[in-house]
């Protein structure tokens, strides 16, 4: 008998059940009555895991390995496609890879346990042949070139390349046409065996299901394995930027720009680190958000438009402020944005502005519970963290004016790089 613990937030009228199996596999169930069931299996292995230590030895993986593995995961032993198995049971399945992790998920209205069986079967074993890997490489090459035709994706990628010297985020999650050439059947087997271990996997389900039956199904497909996730190796990354400016040309309406300001990285799995990141996000929103002096004044003068965005990104061993948009006067916008950040260090916002921003952030935070699908994926991906969505809301309530100011003050404007895609 497995004992799930109940985690509840009465104010939000939300709860979930959580269980870590003996082999380390984590299961979360959100008991929501809805016409649809959602389930997601998440592996804590993503695009950033290109170098790792196991048994005292360092191993490397070509960029794009996690994503390549995701593409091959729905292939059955007989070469058939799991999508057809989901289809047979009315399930709608898909998968996605990020820098942090890889998620496999489905939605259905009927035959939940049959669909869950297909998902567990797919992720608990892999089947590759040289031929099928070669065929998939061609499909992934088309995916990579598709992204290369999206200028906004290129301008963001170039900003990463300018900010970082060797962090894995300088290469796309899907890899490049060159790196995927180095991915073989053997590479994929090694990555699968090292990272798809039960303690590195989580399942989240949204729907009214039999907890015991779910736990038994997982145990059946993932029998006890003592293997532990290898430790990902990140090379030391200085706070200075690799390149201050990167300019390319492409078919765009007007120049696209992406300004990055490198920040000291923090761990990503503790609530304390989340709190610091939240403080930075609120500081950036106060400075550049839709109600800010900066945005409104420069929008009205024609410098900015609806495509303007400012935010803060934190991933393992990397963190930066990002300011992006479109407009041929990107040099002036950069200068004004950096000046505004410096100015706000001395003339900070009022407590009223801070409270309004918190109110807005609260409303945005609780909408995560509106989409069963998003909430399921978020809980599956977050199962490896030491906090959950309820903790995040608590932190939002507690966070102080001084913390926001300290976050803004910590931004070092000298660690700034800009990527531009000019027209033509």
């Amino acid at each position, binding site marked *: 008998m497995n004992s799930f613990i109940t985690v509840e937030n009465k104010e939000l009228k939300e709860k979930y059940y959580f269980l870590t199996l003996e082999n380390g596999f984590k299961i979360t169930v959100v008991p929501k009555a809805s016409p649809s069931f959602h389930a997601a299996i998440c592996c804590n292995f993503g695009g950033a895991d290109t170098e790792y230590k196991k048994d005292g030895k360092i191993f490397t993986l070509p960029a794009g390995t996690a994503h390549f593995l995701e593409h091959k995961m729905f292939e059955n032993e007989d070469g058939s496609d799991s999508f057809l198995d989901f289809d047979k049971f009315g399930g709608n399945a898909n998968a996605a890879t990020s820098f942090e992790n890889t998620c496999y998920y489905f939605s259905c209205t009927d035959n939940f346990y049959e669909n869950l069986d297909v998902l567990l079967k797919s992720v608990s074993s892999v089947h590759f042949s040289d031929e099928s890997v070669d065929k998939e490489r061609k*499909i992934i090459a088309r995916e990579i070139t598709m992204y290369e035709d999206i200028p906004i994706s290129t301008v963001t990628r170039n900003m990463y390349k300018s900010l970082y010297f060797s962090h894995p985020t300088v290469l796309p999650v899907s890899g490049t046409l060159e790196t995927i050439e180095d991915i073989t059947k053997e590479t994929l087997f090694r990555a699968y065996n090292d990272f798809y271990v039960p303690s590195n996997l989580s399942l989240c389900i949204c729907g009214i299901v039999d907890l015991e039956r779910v736990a038994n199904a997982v145990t059946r497909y993932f029998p006890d394995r003592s293997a532990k996730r290898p430790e990902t190796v990140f090379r030391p990354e200085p706070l200075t930027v690799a390149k201050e400016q990167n300019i390319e040309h492409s078919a765009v309406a007007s120049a696209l720009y992406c300004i990055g300001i490198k920040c000291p990285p923090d761990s990503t799995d503790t609530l304390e680190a989340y709190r610091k990141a939240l403080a930075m996000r609120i500081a950036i929103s106060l400075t550049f958000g839709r109600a800010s002096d900066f945005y*409104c004044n420069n929008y009205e003068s024609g410098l900015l438009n609806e495509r303007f965005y400012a935010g803060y990104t934190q991933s393992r061993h990397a963190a930066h402020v990002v300011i992006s948009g479109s407009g041929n006067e990107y040099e002036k916008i950069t200068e004004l944005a950096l000046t505004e950040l410096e100015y706000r260090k001395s003339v900070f916002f009022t407590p009223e502005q801070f409270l309004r921003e918190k109110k807005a952030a609260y409303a945005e935070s609780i909408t995560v519970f*509106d989409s*069963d699908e998003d909430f399921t994926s978020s809980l599956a991906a977050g199962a490896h963290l030491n906090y959950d969505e309820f903790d995040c809301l608590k932190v939002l309530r507690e966070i102080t004016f001084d913390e926001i100011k300290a976050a803004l003050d910590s931004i070092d404007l000298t660690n700034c790089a800009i990527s531009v895609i000019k027209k033509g």
Partner: protein
Amino acid sequence: MNIKTSKLGEGVYLAACKTEKFKSAVMTVSFAVPLDVETASGYSLLTNLLSLSTGSYKTMQSFSVIKDELYALGLDAYVQRSGELLLVRLEINTIADSFAFDGERVLFRATQLLGDAIFNPHLENGIFPERNVETEKACLVEEIESLIENKPAFAMLRARQIMCKNEPFAVDAGGETERVLALDGEQLLKFHRSIVEIAPVFITYAGEADFEYVQECVKAHLNFTPRENKLPSPVIHKHCGEILRVSEEMEMEQTVLILGFATEPADTAKKRAILTVYDEIFGGSPASKLFMNVREKEGLCYYCSSYPAARKNVIFVSCGLEQGFEDKATDAILKEVESMKSGCFSDDDLTNAKNSIIRALKSFEADLNSINGYLLSQIINADATSVEEKIKHITAITRDEVISFANSVTPELVYVLGGANE
């Protein structure tokens, strides 16, 4: 789910769905006008101005601040194509009252702001202020021209323009640069009058509020005068009699191939159900023939999907290819079109396709936008059918009916958007 509809006056309709599943709520107001190249740009620019400021909140900043005070209220205005209609839409996305602090009636205040944006726009000397018009013209032109940054979407627009030339279906709902630049504050006032006084209006709401509360908000702040509910029927597309082959160049890595097909009109609920089942088997899902054969078996592309147009008898197929593989991919797609005609799909394929569609239909209530889309379809289409009726139609579709429809699918366009040949 508890859905109620009401005719608030001639040409003014309300549909609301009470659901306690969400912590937010969405209300939409859609004005339906004919999709016309002469007017699309004007309506498109108008939506930019209506979401910028109001008569009560004259500056962008004061408008943004009040929205933030209302728990980051989302208030958007935009145009959207629906077959050959242009929907001029304004919508609010608000926190549910029960999650607001101190029992605030957020929906009531949010509807007030929505009403302000619609009935009380920011005017100076009776027209839209010139500086606002000029700023928004520049923004809209940027938006229109940035379509080239999304190659598949740009290619789809070009395919529609080429295949459905001289039909409203070819009009880009967002407008055209030259026409946008020619607009002024006085002309925009005419477009504004046409939505506020003439166009039929459809209001939808999905969220925790009961129907009486929604009606109270609507009556207080969205009190539209009666108007004629007269909407044009879609023009039936006639095959041009040959296969048009058009290639265009742009600086790009990947080639986008669009194939256009004319079909028999799906002008009844049953025919729309047959089209849906056909599309699911042919190219609308990861288990479809296009995905399984053109992508998985042939390895020709990353995506290859079919897109039947809503209430228009055309289907497009889109895929992204390596340069030089256009003919091979065209042959592979046409082979699947032919295989559908000769009934090369199993009973399991048919059953699975139906199950997949029924799952999607049953799942519409999982998302506020889907609910609002469903509510709008129920009040805007005279021949609307409920989810239950749709499921009945889908369940009853036979193999012969799908094959019969497949035989009306006739290729008419091969459009290629690619980089220059080296």
